[in-house]
């Protein structure tokens, strides 16, 4: 018997994408967990690594192609500059609702006690080095290590 009453104790959030809307979703969920007194750890894998890559994290875009919520013909969304334009418009809206940019959001997550892990396999695949990453990343680990981090009652995992 355990005494867990169904409360969420820890959120383990895996980010595998680098489109801005997915990165923000993952960040808001991690930060929101901490705001509720829930522990949070993030695992950045495959394209998700771009969200913690020093040179790339400031240049993430939203997807205008293959994103039905853009309500834009696929052909139009594929035109040069369209992603940049859509991203610019979205960033303006985000500033209005007091949403930090990616770098500042990472600072907030770290200050709030969120652990940030980079996926070793994806690092090897993209030829990234630890120095390429945001300074306060907690480490480069395997998926097994990440699961170990999540052990305990009341842990939930989320794949984005």
């Amino acid at each position, binding site marked *: 018997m355990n005494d867990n009453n169904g409360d969420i104790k820890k959120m383990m959030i895996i980010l595998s994408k680098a489109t801005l809307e997915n990165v923000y979703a993952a960040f*808001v969920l991690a930060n929101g967990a901490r705001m509720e007194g829930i522990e949070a750890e993030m695992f950045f894998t495959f394209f998700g690594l771009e969200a913690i890559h020093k040179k790339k994290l400031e240049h993430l875009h939203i997807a205008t192609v293959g994103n039905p919520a853009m309500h834009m013909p696929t052909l139009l969304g594929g035109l040069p500059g369209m992603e940049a334009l859509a991203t610019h418009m979205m960033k303006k809206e985000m500033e209005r609702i007091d949403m930090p940019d990616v770098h500042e959001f990472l600072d*907030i997550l770290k200050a709030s*006690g969120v652990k940030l892990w980079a996926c070793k396999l994806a690092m090897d695949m993209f030829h990234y080095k630890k120095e390429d990453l945001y300074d306060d990343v907690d480490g480069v680990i395997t998926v097994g290590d990440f699961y170990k981090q999540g052990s305990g009652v009341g842990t939930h995992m989320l794949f984005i």
Partner: protein
Amino acid sequence: MEKIIAGIPVQVNEEGYLTDFPQWNQAVGTELAQEASIDMTPRHWEVIAYLQKEFKNEVPLSIRKIGKSGVVDIKEFYQLFPMAPLKTASKIAGIPKPVSCI
């Protein structure tokens, strides 16, 4: 509903947040802090005073704003109020539960 806090009857909602800020005083805040297992220090009260000032100015609170307040940084805010800092501190301050997601 009514609740006796620090010997005086105050109005609270179902989550225990004060609904009538003028009923708040430091003794009430201290007792609300004890319910959240927090021993108040002068540093805690500085943060509480800041939150109350923002509330009176009708500024919605968020973790990001706390970090930019110049009163406390986010790391220390989490140290002072370890579990759900914005909600806990707001409750102690006698102001409504914040609705921000960031």
